[in-house]
């Protein structure tokens, strides 16, 4: 059994800024470090060994499930999260209809309102239409009762109050976008403060309010190390009709693929539906997700996926825009079964919901790792990993490259792993082709000889595959999952190979996009 002269991964990963540690072992079992260069000029997130989302700094390689046998290097393309409030579902960026966003009431902090029971006529400022007497705040027309400088802008608050008497008109909480209220009863809602003022605004309101409470509130446990209480609950109201929230508008380009993803966990409800708006997506494409069984439900045109992340599911749905428009929108719709029709209506119970975290919309045919946002679209930059090994690592006249990889997509762009001297004249590469189910092998020698062959298989690129490439003069072969799928008796002269790149020989372009469980390089063909 030959010993690899280069191993990347294989259950043993170590990263630091700008470097990913590879290694080789000698016959005695001793390890020798071989560094590769990594770069990515932005932060990014990955899935840590506990199955939670965690962020890393610029130029640090990401290894999903590091320190686990299923650990894999994650290499992704540049992508932008177009959702400008990816976690703050209480923000007005998200429109709610027949539903509200709730935080975890058990985390409610100190009471911010000093005189919420209106025992005395103090603390509140009032327009002339408001009076405080008889243990309530009373309105006889249009005007505002307010208290400024008590909230922190950007924090999330739980507001509750009673309408203790009602004759006519309406009262609202304008800073929270709370719907005007028209009846005696108790009301509560959660919102993110965009103003430090607490205020109630009457429109021809003849009536009284009482028991006002405003407390800072946290979200529920999320699948993120960086936002551990960043999940919020989408709760249906008691109306008969639709119960959903929707994104702000975004621009679409005709023919482009858009993928929406979010981390969702069952609450009292077990199902959720994602819809791309009808204005730009062929009448509105939709996909249902079963959060009890972690399964896909009914869907229309598009590709949906569901993947377990901690006790959440990462649900994603890809659809192609059929118009260039400014009216792109995604709806997160509460539904009652995995086979519910699009935009289902039903009577809510006022308490049931699902937990949401980390919404993301990308102009890509698949979802990539989570990119947090809070106020603007955010771009994660391309991962690059190059220059593993040296001239002593590689044998230019024969060898075997063995990789276990999973592409981010089946087809799309040409995505290479190459060994070379840094030029296109002495190189060997394996590539996931831009065509679905096609793979590519390439050898280019200093003698001018060139083998560049696409070949089809029944093996999709976006599942785990083990691939072995054997090269020797007159003896070229490829095995995918131990089945030989390609041979050639090509003759070549290749010299001075000194690096393995996850991309082209010159280190730029055709970057490998996917997960890499291991790369092993053997300097002879006995291990094919």
């Amino acid at each position, binding site marked *: 059994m030959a010993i690899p002269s280069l191993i990347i991964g294989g259950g043993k990963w170590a990263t630091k800024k700008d470097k990913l540690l590879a290694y080789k072992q000698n016959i005695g079992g001793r390890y020798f470090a071989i560094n590769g260069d990594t770069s990515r*000029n*932005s*932060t*990014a997130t990955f899935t840590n060994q506990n199955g939670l989302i965690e962020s890393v700094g610029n130029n640090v390689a990401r290894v999903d499930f590091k320190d686990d046998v299923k650990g894999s290097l994650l290499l992704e393309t*540049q992508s*932008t999260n177009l959702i*400008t409030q990816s976690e703050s579902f209480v923000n007005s960026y998200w429109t709610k209809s027949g539903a509200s966003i709730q935080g975890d009431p058990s985390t409610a902090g100190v009471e911010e309102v000093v005189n919420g029971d209106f025992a005395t006529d103090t603390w509140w400022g009032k327009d002339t239409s408001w009076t405080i007497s008889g243990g309530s705040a009373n309105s006889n027309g249009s005007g505002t009762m307010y208290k400024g400088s008590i909230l922190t802008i950007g924090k999330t608050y739980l507001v509750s109050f009673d309408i203790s008497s009602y004759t006519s008109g309406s009262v609202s909480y304008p800073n929270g976008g709370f719907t005007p209220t028209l009846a005696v009863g108790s009301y509560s809602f959660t919102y993110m403060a965009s103003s430090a003022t607490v205020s109630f605004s009457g429109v021809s309101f003849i009536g009284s309010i009482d028991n006002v409470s405003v407390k800072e509130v946290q979200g529920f446990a999320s699948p993120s190390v960086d936002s551990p209480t960043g999940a919020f609950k989408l709760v249906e109201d008691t109306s008969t009709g639709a119960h959903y929230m929707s994104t*702000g*508008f975004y*621009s679409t380009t005709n023919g482009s693929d858009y993928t929406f993803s979010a981390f969702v966990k069952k609450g009292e409800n077990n199902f959720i539906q994602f819809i791309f708006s009808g204005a730009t997506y062929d009448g509105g494409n939709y996909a249902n997700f079963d959060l009890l069984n972690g399964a896909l439900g009914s869907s229309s045109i598009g590709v949906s996926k569901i993947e377990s992340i901690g006790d959440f599911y990462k649900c994603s749905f890809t659809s192609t825009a059929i118009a260039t428009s*400014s*009216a792109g929108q995604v709806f997160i719709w509460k539904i009652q079964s995995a086979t519910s029709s699009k935009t289902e209506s039903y009577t809510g119970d006022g308490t049931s919901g699902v937990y949401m975290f980390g919404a993301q919309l990308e102009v890509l045919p698949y979802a990539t790792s989570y*990119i*947090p946002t809070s106020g*603007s*679209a*955010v*771009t*994660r*930059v*391309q991962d690059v990993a190059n220059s593993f090994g040296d001239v002593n690592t590689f044998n230019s006249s024969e060898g075997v490259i063995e990789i276990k990889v999973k592409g981010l997509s089946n087809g799309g*762009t*040409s995505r290479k792993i190459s060994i070379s001297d840094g030029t296109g004249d002495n190189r060997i590469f394996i590539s996931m082709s831009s065509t679905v189910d096609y793979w590519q092998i390439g050898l280019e020698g200093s003698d001018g000889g060139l083998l560049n062959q696409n070949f089809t298989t029944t093996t999709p690129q976006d599942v785990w595959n083990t691939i072995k490439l054997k090269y020797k003069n007159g003896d070229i072969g490829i095995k995918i999952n131990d089945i030989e799928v390609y041979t050639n008796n090509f003759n070549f002269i290749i010299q001075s190979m000194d690096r393995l790149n996850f991309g082209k020989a010159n280190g*730029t*372009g*055709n970057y490998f996009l996917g997960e890499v469980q291991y790369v092993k390089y053997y300097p002879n063909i006995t291990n094919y």
Partner: protein
Amino acid sequence: MNIYKLHYTNKEEAIIDLIAKEVYTQTKEDGLVFGQGIKAIVDIGLIVLTEQTFDEEGEELTELVYADGYHFDVMSEHEIEFTNAIVPNNPKHTFA
């Protein structure tokens, strides 16, 4: 790392300028690719200043208003001389 927020009249003008400044390089094999030292190019496009909103009957409440021009963000490891770089007070896009 240098980050440029660029304002153009339209997308066509942007692509021509980005090729001229070697932010994009045109190749036979792959079409437009990043130029040497370019780490990211983000097609921001049109920027919405006021979103279009509707009432329950579908009547328009506020008209859609775009900022003037077409926008790109570029991240480069070397300095590039742009005459159309802007510094927005409230950027609609950032890098992670």
